[in-house]
């Protein structure tokens, strides 16, 4: 290895490690804080490593707030949202990609045009629609709007167009109907993009804040982000508590990430357009 190459290599590890430090230091701080007793929070000089280590925050977290319930709510809302988005969008995408009919392109253009309107514009009327339907403060209310997702339809349709028509024609001759073709051919062949879509949808729903904040008011129905922000307003200076809560809210996604890193990265790069 040439000297120059050695320097380059050294430079790489130096820079990469400095950035990694800035990335991880906050998490270290988060873990460290969550393990401090309340009294150790406001001590100078700052304690980097808590002494003594205290699990007080974790215990109090679950007694002050139905945190276990919030984890369940978040899991439920994120999974259900993902299921709805994937099912509804893939069905529509199948029609837009494979079944021609008059006015199809116009309808598709309408779908795309709705993507230009930011969510904040429809947020207030959506709230009113749910209020009118009596769905405020219910999971159904949180989930309902995800039945229409123009971005997901667009993404899947682009992908499904790449599936050769010969496959569906062969299935047609073998006696498959449109539903069977969708289930047996289109969905299996769209698996990579469906997994990517599932992952970003799940993550988006898991981390979503504004919409559940508007719809949910009942503590027993709150998702993790809403619960955390409520904790923030009630116990704003008890950071050991808040950090413990934040850590717990991160864990499921992190676990999922380590198992499906590829899908996450793929999903988030194609999800770029979503904004």
């Amino acid at each position, binding site marked *: 290895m040439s000297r120059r190459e050695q320097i380059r290599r050294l430079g790489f590890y130096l820079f990469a490690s400095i950035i990694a430090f800035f990335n991880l230091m906050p998490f270290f701080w988060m873990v460290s804080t969550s393990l401090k007793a309340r009294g150790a929070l406001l001590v100078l000089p700052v304690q980097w490593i808590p002494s003594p280590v205290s699990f007080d925050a974790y215990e109090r977290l679950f007694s002050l707030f139905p945190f276990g319930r919030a984890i369940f709510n978040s899991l439920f809302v994120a999974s259900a949202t993902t299921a709805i988005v994937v099912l509804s969008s893939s069905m529509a995408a199948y029609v837009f990609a494979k079944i021609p009919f008059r006015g199809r392109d116009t309808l598709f253009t309408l779908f795309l045009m709705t993507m230009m309107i930011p969510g904040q514009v429809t947020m207030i009327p959506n709230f009113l629609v749910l209020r009118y339907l009596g769905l405020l403060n219910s999971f159904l209310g949180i989930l309902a709007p995800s*039945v229409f997702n123009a971005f997901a339809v667009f993404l899947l349709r682009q992908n499904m167009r790449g599936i050769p028509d010969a496959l569906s024609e062969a299935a047609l*001759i073998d006696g498959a109907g449109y539903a069977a073709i969708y289930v047996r051919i289109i969905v299996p062949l769209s698996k990579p993009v469906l997994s990517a879509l599932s992952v970003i949808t799940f*993550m988006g729903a898991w981390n979503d804040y504004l919409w559940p904040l508007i719809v949910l008011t009942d503590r027993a129905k709150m998702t993790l982000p809403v619960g955390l922000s409520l904790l923030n307003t009630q116990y704003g200076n008890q950071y050991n508590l808040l950090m413990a809560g934040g850590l717990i809210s991160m864990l499921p996604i992190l676990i999922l990430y380590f198992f499906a890193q590829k899908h996450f990265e793929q999903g988030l790069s194609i999800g770029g357009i979503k904004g």
Partner: protein
Amino acid sequence: MRQLRGGNRKRIKEHNRILVINHLRLHGPMSRADLARYTELGLSTITYIIDELMDDGLVVETGAGESSGGRKPTMLEFNGSVAAVVGIKIEPTRILFSRMNLLGKIQQKAAAELPPEADSAALNQLLIDNISGLLEGDVNSAPLVGIGIAVSGLVDQAHGKVLYSPILAWDEFDFTPVSRHFDVPVIVENDANTFALAQVWTGMVPHHSSFLGVTVGVGVGLGIVIDGQVFRGEHGGAGEFGHLVIQHEGAPCYCGQRGCLEMYASDHFALSEVKRHIALGVPTILGDSDSLTINDVYEAAEQGDRCAQSIIYKQGQNLGIGLKNLVNLFNPAAIILGGEGIRGGKHLLRGIELELATNFFAKKQQPVQLKVCSTGEDVWLIGTCALVVNQIYRAPIFKPGGLGMNRRLTIFFFLLPSLVGLLLFSIIPIGTSLYLSLTEWDVIGGAPKFHWLKNFRDIIQNEEFPRVLGNTLYFIALYIPLILGASLLVAVLLNNKYPGVGLYRTIYYVPVLTSWVAAALLWKWLLNPRYGAINAILGMAGITGPSWLHSKSWAMPGIVLASVWKDVGYFALIILAGLQGIDTSYYEAAEIDGANWFKKLTRITVPLVTPTLFFVTIISVINSFQLFPQVMVMTEGGPGGATQVFVERIYNYAFRYYKMGYAASYSWILFVFIFAATLIQLQLQKRWVHYES
């Protein structure tokens, strides 16, 4: 493209029924046992189908056949007279009509003169009258199931039209009035194709073989049959054999080309050659070249006129050259000759045979069979019958035209969830929001009060608005350069192949996965002026950190810091994908030219990654306008409104102060800003984004 239809039990049954009919019709008579063997259907299926067909009168028993030991089998036959087909051949001067049974047996024939210059309405009426006459002559009055029309030129079979026929001088002739009058399908086909189709029915060639049907006369035509199917080409015009060019810079043809085969192998050739010979004074019994017809030439040849014979021989040779080309192209089992021109007889054939004797396959394969069709003018009519019957009994795998009910229901069912969502959560809300933006409404008390653009005026004139806009622009001004620089740097680092890159990549990505609420709580604590980690670290370096979120001037930079930390991994990954798309040959070339890494970064990497950077900029500007959770959790817009931004305002007006109309107007102003910012960037991109051509 034609729509294939689905299969199910009923359709499979239909399919088998047709299979049996076709076997009997083309290969019958045969016994049930033979049918089962050939169709590979079960004997019980065959028995069942045959019973049905006999009930319908389509199949009849014809008595006992030869026994191969044991009881003599009962032979079955397709009953052609169950229905009638009308076949029509249109020639330059006359029209031939015929009524046939489904097996192509001609039961009655008629001819009518083709009036010159007749318009299409008159012609269609002529056809209708003659067909009606034929049908009246049927004592059994078998129902008419279809009309087949053989005509020279280019046809549009799907629409029952002749597109163009130079010999008839027709342009766009539509037979649909005939179809409508008799309420049966009218199938139009090029005459050479019907000629070829008829060959299978008259037993000239076996089924499922590949052969060529060639017609000579006024023109030269070709029907190509591949594996028993007429090959019609993508648009139905395949087989324009007469316009194969056989002579470079040859005689001009009416089609616009020069040296077409038709100029050398049709009646036209024989006639003009005879006239030329007479003019040259070649001895011949033919005289008076002005009133000469092709029949005179044939007669003279028969009577031993050498001049006529040699001309017909030459015509045959020319045709043979064309045929040789076809043989090399299709390697057919046989060539069947037909048409008026075959009256040239042995002289013509000798010329053809001379040329055909040598072809690419001649050494290794049996010579291609050259057969002359002796059926005469009936052959065209039989061909049209085949056309209609094949259409009726084709394998039922294509859908009848139009969208079926089934398909409509499917489309509706599959789109339903999205359509309901589109209506309920996009179209209605957008409309409602527009309406609300023009009203004053507090949700609780009564209906919205309409007051035109008052909200917009109030928002823009309020002293709060410049602050909100200023805060947002301040955020953008700090955030965009930082996030672009940082993500580019991280992406460039990750674009190396050193061991451990994967681990770094994972680490950089963790903040992206964190929910904004958790990240914002974390950063609120990190930026705590006294007890937070950031100021503690700054303190170690001897710097007294600012009071961050508690300070009007430092609160927004604090939020920017948190945002950059959370987003850098995400954008870095997108840029990394862009970097990996850069062709490595650029770097290799630069290395040869002695460029160092910095030059390579600034001259190659950055310019070529600008499309990705542009994409990242667009998204991050849109995201910046929609800044919300970090503000909500970290500062709630404070201190003193220093971090108030659009979405935070919209949320508070709508859901804290219940000023729905006002909040809706605010959201439309946000939309206008996002839209304008995106448009401006699309305009500006020309100045800095480099697209590889």
